[in-house]
């Protein structure tokens, strides 16, 4: 059986590489399985461009991106990590040059998204702007969806937010595209997050939920009780962390005694100070 190759371009914009590092933590499949093996029988992800992993450097690797967008028109997956700076036409973030002039991240995203099979906004920065877009958003950063809307680009978009996202959310989304094709509109929520991973709140599955229901709240770190009064965002945060667990399933934020900081939600750094009880005003009705 011949192997179907899925070319992929992984573009890093205004981010911290944390999403890439998180995907390196994938367990089954491992990152070696993702890079080298048929990740599903008969399918291989051909990761042609990834700044932190690839062997090459310089102009030839930039040409790989351009060549892929031309030769594999409509057939490659564009993964964007990091937000896109838009102030002053994007000069706060550039990758390489075009015709002797710095080429902005914004221009790369516009060019590569146009002809992609699908765009994945990986991490909260690419999905919603994330940390660089936190107030006062000095470089006017935004998520990839906003760039697509502004340019009228209709390529299907899936957002996988999280700071960082869990590697399973990324691998599961990609595997789903390989097996079943692009997600249907009803598979995604209003922020284009796959409901399979973001369909419930942290609060709904939290092992400390019983404390909340009995009004037993921790007053400081290390206390037994629900961490809600320490600033936990579990009630307003959509993700399956309490059941999925992190890093080889050894722990997760509330499991280790800390608070959920709401990292899968738009604008999570601007909702309220992180270690302050979230006000009733921002809580959804049902809580």
């Amino acid at each position, binding site marked *: 059986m011949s192997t179907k190759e899925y070319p992929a371009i992984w573009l890093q914009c205004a981010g911290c590489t*944390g999403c890439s590092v998180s995907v*390196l933590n994938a367990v089954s499949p491992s990152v070696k399985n993702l890079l080298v093996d048929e990740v599903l029988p008969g399918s291989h992800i051909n990761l042609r461009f990834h700044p932190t*992993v690839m062997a090459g450097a310089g102009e030839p690797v*930039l040409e*790989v991106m351009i060549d892929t967008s031309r030769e594999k028109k409509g057939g490659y997956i564009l993964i964007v990590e990091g937000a896109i700076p838009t102030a002053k036409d994007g000069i706060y973030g550039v990758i*390489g040059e075009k015709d002797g002039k710095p080429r902005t991240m914004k221009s790369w995203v516009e060019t590569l998204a146009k002809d992609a099979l699908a765009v994945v906004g990986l991490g909260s920065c690419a999905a919603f702007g994330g940390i660089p877009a936190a107030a006062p958003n000095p470089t006017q950063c935004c998520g990839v969806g906003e760039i697509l809307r502004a340019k009228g680009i209709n390529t299907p978009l899936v957002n996988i937010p999280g700071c960082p996202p869990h590697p399973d959310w990324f691998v599961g989304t990609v595997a789903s595209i390989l097996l079943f094709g692009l997600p249907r509109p009803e598979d995604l929520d209003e922020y284009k997050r796959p409901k399979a991973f973001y369909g419930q709140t942290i609060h709904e599955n939290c092992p400390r939920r019983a404390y909340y229901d009995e009004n037993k709240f921790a007053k400081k770190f290390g206390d037994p009780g629900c961490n809600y009064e320490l600033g936990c965002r579990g009630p307003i945060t959509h993700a399956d962390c309490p059941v999925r667990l992190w890093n080889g399933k050894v722990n997760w934020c509330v499991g280790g005694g*800390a608070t959920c*900081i709401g990292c899968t939600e738009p604008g999570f750094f601007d909702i309220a100070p992180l270690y302050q009880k979230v006000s009733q005003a921002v809580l959804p009705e049902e809580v």
Partner: protein
Amino acid sequence: MGQIVIDPVTRIEGHLKVEAVVDRGVVKEVKSSGMLFRGLELILRGRDPRDAQQITQRICGVCPTSHSIAAALNLDSAFGIADKIPDNGRIIRNLILGAAQIADHVLHFYHLTALDYVDVARLAKYSGNNPVLSSIKSFIARGELGPFVPRYEGDYRLPDEVNERVVAHYVAAFDMRRRGQEMLTLFGCKMPHNVGVVPGGVASVPSVDNMTSFLWRLREFQEFVDSIYLPDVLAVAQVYSDYFEIGRGCGNLLAYGSYELDGKEADLTKRKRFFKSGTTSSDLKFNELDQSKITEEVKHSWYADSISGRHPSQGDIVLDEGKKGAYSWLKSPRYDGMVFEVGPLARIMVNYASGNVKVKSLVDSVLSQADLKPKAMFSVMGRHLARALETKLIADAMTDWLLQLKPGEPAYIDYELPKEATGMGLLDASRGALGHWIEVKEGKIANYQVITPSTWNVSPRDDKNQPGPLEQAIIGTKIKDEANPFEIVRIVRSFDPCLACSIHLLTPKGHDLGRFRVC
């Protein structure tokens, strides 16, 4: 003579451009430029001081852990609790930092560096029965070689047997660095961007099962360091021994020190640390660190000259994007007006110079096996070797720290948020000296300044026009083959910079001779 464009240099974190002027095959002049500005220090202003602990981790997803601990030290000092952190909290922070650093160094050697020296493509003719190497052979046979090509060609010198071994370890190292992150997560909750470290200590209370789980992952890691990582670095260094002469750098080294052995001293510059703070130079004379001599200069950075030369506690961000002569978003940190390199090499050699017995005997024994003098450490291979030796020193120290934990006892102390305060957090991160400074007014962050290790190492020229450490390491380098400038990318990566790079080689006058494709 011609212009080569390497744009971007990959396998490093972030966005950086370096322009080098080459004359008759020798680099004459270099400019390194940070190419991404996010303004995190501006975002921090006006916020609850405690949020700095989460926000500053997002400076870097490769080494967020160091920022979390530098921020926690900074906030502890601002909140007046630096000498009150429970021992459990102090020790767990050490374990979290240690787990991060050993995982980071393994990632750096195998995943960010090795592809400059090993030849994955040669596995096409592999004839053995190692399943990992066979799967790579089938991958090559399928013909879609991304992300392993394109690449520079011509200087892959490892004998087949060593080459195959290191490629197999490239794959094994993925699992091992993940194991390091699991160790961290046992106490830090998740990685990257842990939520376990908080001002006042850590959020988790140690338990026997977490300690045991940590211990046996650590054991596995130590075996990997002793039987795989260190031998691989030495094997690569032996074949590429000319790289003990290349990329020497500025010759001045600075370390803040790391791993708190004493929680009762409020002034962290006086604390007993596993790695001591200090400076040294090629003469290997040890000097105590005086942090008041640190300044940040901006003559060649896109910031207003009015903020140049200040101590970071008085630092500011005033943008001046169009400034004449400026070429970077990075400022130029200097110590006593001089250029200093930071990182594992600095940590190892500062502690070597200060007479640390463990460090000295390990370094001397490895150097004597390779028939090298200590000055060989000031080089591309010296930096890789220092990183590997440091990994061993940290991994071997952690069992003792772990066994000092008292299960079930507090690792956190509560505190009052001050209305007005200043703080400082200094430590040695994976990539070198990391400093955080805060000023709190009316209970909010009035100013927050960070100097990262890569800002030291990749800094542009300063007010006296002295090139930064990376720039100095590239200047004078002979480029054997301008179409495949291995020397430059190998020097850049030896610093493990936290920035993605693009390198331009220009003619001495800077005029364009026309570009040609590098392939």
